[in-house]
Structure formats: structure tokens, C-alpha cells
């Protein structure tokens, strides 16, 4: 599965997520969604399914919708099951000659709705084999409710439920490796990606996922200016740093075969990613050097493991 990527051609397609939505400036979610939807072939219709999230409350505030395609939101923890229902209806109505043309099914949910409360529903939908793409936009905390930790929150990150105090030093636990959990479902296509540079990686992974039959999963890094505490204008730079420090490596697993999608020319130290973000500020205080060492060691270990798996 591959597609020739031409940025100019792609950006000339009509937007399927329109301007005028209410997402914050400097938010990753909006560009992730518009980037993924741009991978749809022009003539194909889609039904977008959304978990309760920042994205949902910002893009479909009655009576306005930011989507050019059909859209459904029902609850926080069931977006994959909701998408299953729409896909089931499509199969039934198609069989009975009541629906024409190709319709694609794409779910967007944040890390809270995916790593945590929605994991059961996601796992069930993937196991059942619905022809759909589930996109997790991972902003590493419950941002919609005011920045509480999720199981996607990285160690040491400051959130409102893992605050930094005289004893507490941010989140104590590791980040759950959701992408690997999805690989363990033996579904046709899993990828970890991010909107970097000219969007080629996000576009290609999204295209592969949308046009591979069966359940596919994309985990997409999606910074949050409020939760991560960075100036809105630095969004693109932060994502690039996550990728070049190997904090968020880009890879795909197609029919069980692991492939790196991007290798940094020079693997940057993890501090380059941590420093611009307020949520990690305490890691740079005197006496906390061990935190940075631990963070670096963890990233290195995971990166090595990924290199082994991908045979790179």
C-alpha cells in the first residue's frame, strides 16, 4: 500500500474539516484531523465518529458542524463501538441495495478516550474486524476537563492530578504503550505518526489505513498548548522535536511487519523536547538531574527495541 504524495495537490483539495471550529490556537488535534481527512480520495464519502473530547465539543457545537462529512458523537468511552454500528449499518444497507458508493469510517478519539476509558470498546472493535480506521490523537492527558493525567501521560509530566509539590514530582508511572497493544491485536495495519514538516508521513499513514481493508489504527502525537504549556506558535517545532529525540518515533506495522517510517538524521537529546514545555519545568531544577537521566534512558531503550523490531 503506497501513495505518491504531492503536497501542492493535497492542499488544493477542499477541506473536510472547515475553519471556524473552536479548537485553541496551537492545538495539534485540528491539524491531525484535517490531515487525516485529506487522505480520503475526493470522490469517497466518510462518516466521522468522535469520542467525547476537546475535538468533539469544539467541532460540533449545535447548530454548527465543522465537518463536511457525516459525523456522529455518542459518548466518551464508546467511539469504536459507535463506529462499529455505523459500519454494520453500511454492510446491512449495502447488502439490501439501500446505500450506494463507497463510504469510509474514521474514528477520532483522544488519549483519555483511547488509552483509558475507551480501551475495551477499541479492543472489541478491532477484534471483530470492522472495516474502519481508529485515530487516537494523543495529547497525553485529559485536556478537555482541565489537564488531568491519563495513562498516556509521560513520567514526570505535571498535570492537575499529578502536580509538582514538596513531595510530588509529577506523574510517577510510565506511559502505556498503546501502539504495541494494538499491534498485538494482529490487525492489518497499525502506525504511529505525527503531523511533521510537509505532512507527508501523516498523509501516507492515513492513506494506508483508510485504504487497507479491515480494522486499522493510527496513533498520532497531538500537542496541547494548554496542557503542555508551550507558546501556540511553537506547535510544529515541538512535534518535530518529539520525533527527532525519538520520544515519539514514527513507524508502521503492516500485516505484522514492522517498518520505521522516519529515522532522525541526528538523534537529539530528550532535553531538547522537554525544555520548551512548562509541564516538565521542574525536571530542570537543581537536584532533579536524575529525572532527565531516567527519561533519556527510557527513550533510548525503547528506540533500541524499535530498531531491533524494524531490522533497521
Amino acid at each position, binding site marked *: 500500500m503506497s501513495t505518491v504524495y504531492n503536497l501542492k495537490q493535497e492542499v488544493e483539495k477542499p477541506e473536510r474539516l472547515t475553519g471556524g471550529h473552536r479548537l485553541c490556537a496551537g492545538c495539534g488535534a485540528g491539524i491531525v484531523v484535517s490531515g487525516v481527512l485529506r487522505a480520503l480520495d475526493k470522490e469517497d464519502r466518510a462518516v466521522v465518529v468522535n469520542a467525547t473530547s476537546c475535538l468533539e*465539543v469544539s467541532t*460540533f457545537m449545535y447548530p454548527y458542524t465543522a465537518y463536511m462529512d457525516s459525523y*456522529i458523537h455518542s459518548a466518551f468511552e464508546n467511539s469504536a463501538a459507535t*463506529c462499529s454500528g455505523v459500519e454494520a449499518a453500511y454492510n446491512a444497507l449495502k447488502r439490501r441495495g439501500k446505500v450506494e458508493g463507497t463510504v469510509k469510517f474514521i474514528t477520532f478519539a483522544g488519549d483519555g478516550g483511547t488509552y483509558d476509558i475507551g480501551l475495551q470498546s477499541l479492543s472489541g472493535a478491532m477484534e471483530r474486524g470492522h472495516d474502519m480506521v481508529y485515530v487516537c490523537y494523543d495529547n497525553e492527558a485529559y485536556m478537555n476537563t482541565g489537564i488531568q493525567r491519563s495513562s498516556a501521560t509521560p513520567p514526570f509530566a505535571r498535570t492537575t492530578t499529578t502536580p509538582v509539590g514538596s513531595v510530588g514530582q509529577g506523574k510517577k508511572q510510565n506511559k502505556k504503550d498503546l501502539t504495541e497493544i494494538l499491534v498485538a491485536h494482529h490487525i492489518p495495519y497499525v502506525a504511529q505518526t505525527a503531523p511533521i514538516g510537509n505532512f507527508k508521513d501523516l498523509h501516507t499513514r492515513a492513506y494506508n489505513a483508510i485504504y487497507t481493508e479491515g480494522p486499522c489504527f493510527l496513533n498520532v502525537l497531538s500537542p496541547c498548548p494548554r496542557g503542555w504549556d508551550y507558546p501556540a506558535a511553537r506547535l510544529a517545532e515541538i512535534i518535530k522535536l518529539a520525533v527527532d529525540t525519538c520520544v515519539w518515533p514514527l513507524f508502521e506495522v503492516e500485516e505484522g511487519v514492522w517498518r520505521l517510517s522516519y529515522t532522525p538524521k541526528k538523534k537529539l537529546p530528550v532535553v531538547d523536547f522537554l525544555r520548551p514545555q512548562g509541564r516538565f519545568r521542574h525536571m530542570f531544577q537543581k537536584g532533579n538531574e536524575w529525572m532527565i537521566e531516567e527519561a533519556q534512558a527510557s527513550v533510548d531503550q525503547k528506540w533500541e527495541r524499535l530498531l531491533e523490531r524494524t531490522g533497521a
Partner: protein
Amino acid sequence: MSNRLTGNEAVAYAMKQVNPDVMGAFPITPSTEIPEYFASYVANGEVNTEYVTVESEHSSMSVCLAAQAAGARSVCATSSCGLALMYELLYVAASCRLPVTLACVNRALSGPININNDHSDSMGARDTGWIQIYAENNQEAYDNFLMAMPIGETPSVRLPVMTCMDGFITSHAVENIDLLETDVVRKFIGEYNPENYLLKKENPLAVGPYDVSPYYMEHKVQEAEAMKAAKARILEVAAEFANISGRRYGLFEEYRMEDAQLALVLIGSSAGTAKAAVDKLREDGIKAGLVKIRVFRPFPGEELALALANTRAVAVMDKSEGFSANGGPLFAETRSALYDLKERPYLIDIVYGLGGRDIKVEDFEKVFGRLADIAVTGETGPVYTHMGQRSKEEIA
């Protein structure tokens, strides 16, 4: 067409005749047989439904409401904790005006865990915006399920419908029932042709918004109006159903109520036992009667007040606890409905049958005995009591 079927098989058979577009399936006792029977219809090619074997009741309701939003007719079945797990989505289905049909096989709720019949599950969901229709026996379970779709899918209603029957008592007992021919059923329920749906090519649709304060209340008022409109539609569908089946249904059934002075109000399979008690008392010249509530949502308050207007004393029999410390849910509704009568009967509430606790003809006779005393003395005694439980001494 006559047949001997359990309640579960009767409902599954109704589903087969409907041949819905989508079914969400997850097992829970005592409703499990419904998806099991349906699975065999799927396996044998007797239906071409998209049969989605979900990983929980939560996902079952999610699948059904989403399929319905996409333009498909969807059904499912559940009981007890399964219904409780669906709870959040019951609201979503109703507020998005998605007429899903759910067969609820009534069972007690945990805890402690109990698999037998009472009405705690569906009564807990009484305010979710679902139409609720209860069956006394297998025939009614079958008939109610068929009537659910023409009721819920009507544009002026567009609400999901829960058809309820008593777990084990109805779901597993074999009875003779009359089945309609499949082509008659198909013609009766018609095609599901919603005006707007997600998969409609001509105009994309958005469902399930963030509904801000300037709109939310308006939507809730519309939903409330739809529930009011459902009452007339339920009667209309019942009349149409009588034409094809010869079986007549109302919002409730009045049994020997013409001149009744003492009456019971109850729901479900206990009605059969209570009718036997009424017959026995009538033989002794006691003017006993029964009102069996069939439609609990929308609640037929005005009609019920009229039916009870000339009685002296009424016992409302609740097969669920509401823990309001003021009586069960059926009692609250009934007492409220009677408030506007100029002359009201004395009213007591008796909670019975929890977790499958048996109730016999003699038990109902005792209740009528209490009502007879109340009618004479004008003293109700304790208004809210439980019946059938052992005393503390007996348990010790």
C-alpha cells in the same frame, strides 16, 4: 399459526420475522437465548441481518444507536446489569431520537447478585426517555415486540422502545402462542425509512452535538413532547395490530374493574396470578378488580385515574424497590395520577417479589383482605410495606 414457545423464543422469532438490519448481541441471563436463537437464524440464512457480537452491553447499545443513526433498523436484548451498563447510552439513543428496539428480560439488579425476576432493571431506566411496554405472558411479549417499531419509528415520536417481560417466568416458560405470518408482520412494520441518516448520499448529517445552554432545554422539551405524543400512537398501533391479529391492547388492561371497589395495580406476569385471586373473590361476592399496567412510559396517568375513580381502596404492587423511603416507582406514579380526583380511593403500596420471591394466589387474597379492612375502617395502616420476606427471627 399456533406454536409452543418460551418467551425468549417468541421474541427471537419476532426478530426473525422483522429481519432487522443490525443486531447488537451480548449474553446475559435470562435474555441470552434471544441472541442465541437469532444467531441460529443468521447461521441458517433465515435472516440477512448484520449480527454484531460485541464485547459488552455498553457496546451493544452503542452499536445499535449508531446503526440506527446511520439509517438502519437495529435491535438488541438484555437484562439486569446489562441494562445498567447500557444506561448512559439509553439517554443518548432517546435524546438523539433514535428508535432502537430493545427486548428487556426483567431481572433483579446487583447487589447482591441475583439472576431472578423483578423489575429493578427497567424501573431504573424509567427516566431515560425510552418508551416502556410490559408483557404479562409470552403472547404479549411477542405482540409487544412487533408493535414497538411502528410506535418508535413514527416521525412524531422517534423514540427508542423497550419491550419488557419477566425473566424466567415469561422468558423460559413454554406457552401456546399465536404467531402471525411473516409477510403479515413485514407489511405491518413496514420499511424503516428515516428522513435523514448518516449514510444518506444527498446530505451529510451530524448527530450527537455538544448542545449548549441556548439549545439543550429546547431539545429536552421536544423529547418530552414526543413522549406525550407516543400515547396516541401506541393506541393507534394497537388498533392496527388488532386488525391483523384479533388481539386488543390498551395502555393498561382492566380486569373485572366495571364495579370494582377493591383493586390492585401491578405490572407483568403476576397479573395472571392476581386474576385468579380476583376470580376467586368475585365468586364470594367481593368486588375485586385488577389494573395491569402495560405501558409504563409514557405513563397513562389520566386514564388510570379514571379507571380507579370509583374504587374504595387500591393496593399498588411494586416489583422493584426504589429506596425512596416513600414507596416504589409504580406507587409514586399511581398516587400522583390520582391526586386530581375529587374523591380518591385509599391507597397503599406493597413491594413484593424481589429477586424472584414467589407470589401466590393466597398472597393476593391477603392483599385484598387488607383492602377490604381499609375500605370499612378508613384506616390504611402503614402505607408502604413489603410482602413475602421472612422475619428477622426466621432468618436467624
